[in-house]
């Protein structure tokens, strides 16, 4: 009995000290991390739908659009930015999609992903191929589809799953904005 008590005590003390140190580090870093995350999001919003006066989050039907994280209305009145998280080929992809008042896509920007470098990751890269891929989404409506499926989006070579996921997410984003009425 004594032995168990002693073991628990040692483990408890070590856990408590570790937790304390982590608390301190967290207190020192959370503000910066928060700021970086927000800045990243803001940059992604501004890339797909420029707004001089910022964005305001609006309510949407989460049960109908489970992949959508947030819908943000531009304070300039020129549309919405929809962020969504969905599965790609390797892991989940977080993307911002701009939708104008005519329910057309104004651009997409991938905030986070873990796609294969050189294939699916091109969708998020700043390379010419990546820019060209994303440029195809501008002006598309909710009927957006890959060219294989009768649409007009050319999939990235060797990355059909990623391309398809991004295309579907764009369609979902537009539908979500449409449902706002």
């Amino acid at each position, binding site marked *: 009995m004594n032995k168990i008590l*002693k*073991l628990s005590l*040692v*483990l408890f003390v*070590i*856990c408590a000290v*570790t937790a304390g*140190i*982590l608390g301190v*580090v*967290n207190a020192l*870093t959370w503000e*910066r*991390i928060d700021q*970086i995350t927000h800045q*990243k999001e803001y940059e992604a919003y501004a890339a797909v739908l420029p707004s001089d006066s910022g964005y305001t989050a609006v309510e949407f039907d989460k049960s109908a659009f489970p992949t959508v994280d947030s819908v943000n209305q531009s304070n300039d009145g020129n549309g919405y930015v929809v962020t969504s998280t969905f599965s790609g080929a390797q892991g989940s992809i977080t993307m911002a999609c701009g939708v104008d008042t005519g329910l057309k896509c104004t651009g997409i920007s991938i905030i*986070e992903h*873990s796609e*294969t*470098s*050189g*294939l699916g990751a091109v969708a998020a890269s700043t390379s010419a191929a990546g820019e060209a891929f994303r440029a195809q989404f501008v002006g598309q409506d909710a009927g957006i589809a890959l060219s294989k499926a009768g649409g007009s989006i050319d999939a990235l070579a*060797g990355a059909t799953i990623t391309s398809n996921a991004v295309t579907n997410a764009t369609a979902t984003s537009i539908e979500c904005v449409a449902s706002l009425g």
Partner: protein
Amino acid sequence: MNRKQQFKEGLITNNPVLVQQIGMCATMAITTTLFNGVGMGLSVLIILTCCNVVVAALRKIIPDEIRLAIFVVVIAGFVTIVDLLLQAFIPALSAALGVFIPLIVVNCIIIGRAEAFCQKNTVKDSFFDGIFQGLGYTCVLIIMCVFRELVGSGRFGGGLIDIANGFRFTLDGTGGGIQIFPEEFGMSIMNLPFGGFLTLGLLIGLMQYALKRSEKKKKEADRAAKEAAALKEVEE
């Protein structure tokens, strides 16, 4: 303990990846650009050294029955600290390494060194063990990154070196690297996990070959020395 010996063990004769063959999962997953390799290597080096020191310092009060639980708590603590610091100060690296930073918690190198070395050795020896084993790990990562990046996308130093505006090192992962041949001619399979397996397999093979050879040479030299001594005796 002999530092030179420890250094040689960490980098060559008892290299964590190539000889002990531990911590290989992350090795294959993240070695796609030099930036990732250097970042991961240094993160492991720092975490390993800190954990080694703490485990060695606590080795007299850690009860044998719950040592693994305590190692994991200590390792998880340091990994979380490094993870938070990276997120706050080098967000590009944190984004590139993704889940592999938190996964250092279960990286066998760290728990392996705690179990095999630190609980029997002094703080000072454990500190140097952490540095040298970490260096050994980093070197393997760098070799793999350079090879895979060159063959896979014809580049050197992606993320870390920028030559667009004169030669400089970029610590935020934005450098484009030095393009040695056009990316289209690269074997992009080398960028995939398969390329990681292939590269690691080749490296382990080379290392084992070199170790066997040097062992054989040493044996032969020993035998020659013995024969010479025997001959000398006979002559006398």
